[in-house]
């Protein structure tokens, strides 16, 4: 009987080490895994707020309209009315937050041709030109006003 009891003793020691290891794991896990991990799924719930906290660059058309109603009205009768201000003028949230921030000049002809240069890939309803034939590569704005580019205005 004594012999069998000695055999049992080393198992207790082993179990002790095993339990200690499990506890160490539990403590380490409580320490290192954030509380919000697993709140919605197998990820850190706080990561959603981290992504949402990114600063913006584009103000959005509504912000532009707050101050620049004249320009919006100018474009209203023309096809360009559907285009957001920042499509041509660039990202301007900094300007919207502080009007003193300069607005860079829109890049004239290159900008027009990005949409209006003839290209077989463009849908047929898109108005396009070949600059050389259309105006001998003269500046677009010498004839067209960018906000209301129609020729039959006034």
């Amino acid at each position: 009987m004594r012999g069998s009891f000695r055999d049992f003793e080393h198992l207790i020691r082993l179990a002790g080490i095993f339990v200690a290891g499990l506890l160490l794991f539990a403590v380490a896990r409580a320490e290192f895994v954030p509380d919000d991990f697993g709140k919605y799924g197998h990820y850190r719930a706080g990561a959603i707020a981290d992504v949402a906290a990114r600063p913006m660059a584009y103000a959005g058309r509504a912000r532009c309209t707050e101050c620049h109603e004249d320009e919006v009205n100018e474009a209203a009768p023309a096809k360009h009315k559907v285009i957001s201000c920042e499509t041509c003028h660039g990202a301007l949230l900094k300007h919207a937050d502080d009007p003193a921030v300069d607005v860079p000049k829109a890049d004239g002809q290159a900008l027009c041709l990005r949409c209006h240069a003839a290209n077989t890939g463009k849908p047929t309803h898109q108005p396009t030109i070949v600059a050389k034939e259309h105006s001998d590569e003269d500046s677009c704005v010498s004839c067209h006003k960018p906000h209301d580019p129609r020729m039959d205005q006034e």
Partner: protein
Amino acid sequence: METTRRDFLMVGTKLLVMTAATAAAFEHVVAGTPEAVTTYSTAEHWWAMLIDIEKCIGGGHCVRACKTENGVLDEPMYFRTWVERYHVNMSDPDHPIVDSPDGGINGFTEKYADGDGKTFFVPKLCNHCADSPCTQVCPVGATFRTNDGVVLIDKDYCVGCRYCVQACPYGCRYLDPRTHTADKCTLCYHRLTKGLVPACVEVCPTGARQIADLKNPNDPAHEFLRTHKIQVLKPQMATGAKVYYNGLDGAVR
């Protein structure tokens, strides 16, 4: 001697259990209440994107706006959205010629003659799949689909193993060399949660890209989806892709 050792082990075990329990409880106490809930609720939205290929003129405004808004690296090959040009020669429609010079960021120069097959532009971005393979392969829980249907990346958790880059059937992910973490389109989540549209949608001059909240019954997207022939990319992959294309040619991969 033997009983003493057993007692020692018993007492030691009890102490350890109590310490662990106390530590766990203390964690919850110091964590306090979760941060205040904003007016945006993930349960009220289900985001998707509509792309009308018949309206896309390949100007690359979306590519530029995306890079500006999200601070994406300027170098080609780092894109959260890009535009591809497909040219399908009718004598060999199964092998379209696809090009995307610098992701289409500066538009496309004329390359094909009129009448020589068909040519069209296909804007691409993360499909924000409902059952995304990329989130399933992440070994550390660093990428996930939110309850409002946007696939995001936790930059703090990403270990840069690139499994997700390989898992995405649409090639929408890349490894950002600045942070050595995976990166991709967030559907401008930082704008959506503030009631604004993604930067690419904001600047698209022809309205070829539209954001859609499918849980909002008043969203015009429902009308668009109902009245157009809609397709997603690689439907056979059963990813639950949520970028819905109108006028998508069978040649598009």
